[in-house]
């Protein structure tokens, strides 16, 4: 269970290998990588700037990981989220979960991403040909949360 919030890029292969090689009781590694897309709402994006709430970000992400571990039989998890200035094709976020069997890791990884999207205090500002604009929250992200209600 680890959380990293950083400006630097991350090496997905290295991180996934480190997680899975930690124990031979791990049978499943499920991961999500988010990438900056070149078009949003019909406009070309030249830059994406990520702001966050230092302190709250880390505690929100740790709380999401802890909730995932309560709900599913997972062995470890990792969240890396980047800050600052990014471009299309840059990696934004990695969520990885390891477990004995695949079903638990799939659910926990998607759960963490869905909650990260709606609970972790990050905000994106896009630079387009028309200038800068803050990205609006998506209704689809609020709806994604509903599938996890107990």
């Amino acid at each position: 269970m680890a959380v990293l919030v950083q400006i630097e890029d991350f090496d997905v292969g290295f991180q996934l290998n480190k997680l899975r090689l930690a124990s031979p009781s791990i049978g499943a590694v499920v991961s999500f990588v988010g990438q900056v897309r070149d078009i949003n709402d019909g406009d070309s994006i030249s830059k994406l700037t990520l702001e966050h709430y230092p302190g709250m970000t880390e505690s929100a992400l740790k709380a999401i990981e802890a909730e995932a571990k309560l709900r599913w039989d997972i062995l470890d998890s990792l969240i890396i989220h980047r800050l600052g200035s990014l471009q299309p094709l840059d990696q934004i976020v990695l969520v990885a979960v390891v477990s004995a069997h695949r079903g638990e890791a799939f659910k926990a990884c998607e759960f963490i991403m869905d909650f990260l999207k709606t609970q972790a205090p990050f905000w994106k500002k896009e630079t387009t040909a028309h200038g800068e604009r803050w990205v609006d929250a998506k209704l689809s992200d609020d709806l994604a949360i509903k599938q996890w209600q107990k």
Partner: protein
Amino acid sequence: MKIKVLYFARIKEAVNYSTEEVDLPNQVTTITALKNWLALRGEVWANLFDGKQLVRAAINHTLVDDLATIQANDEVAFFPPVTGG
């Protein structure tokens, strides 16, 4: 009582503040009361808290709803719905 108030993203840009220390009157003890009190500062502040846009609040790094109680030395934050990931 004294508290710290933080603003993020488009709200930070609207009010042109990122952090401030405020000394609240006695009757301001909830998020709703704090919003109403800040709205008295002028048009920008009144527009921000008029209910037409979603303003999320956190107390001491925890998301809260508008009825949450504020205590002395709390860190209160206002920000738009989050858009990470």
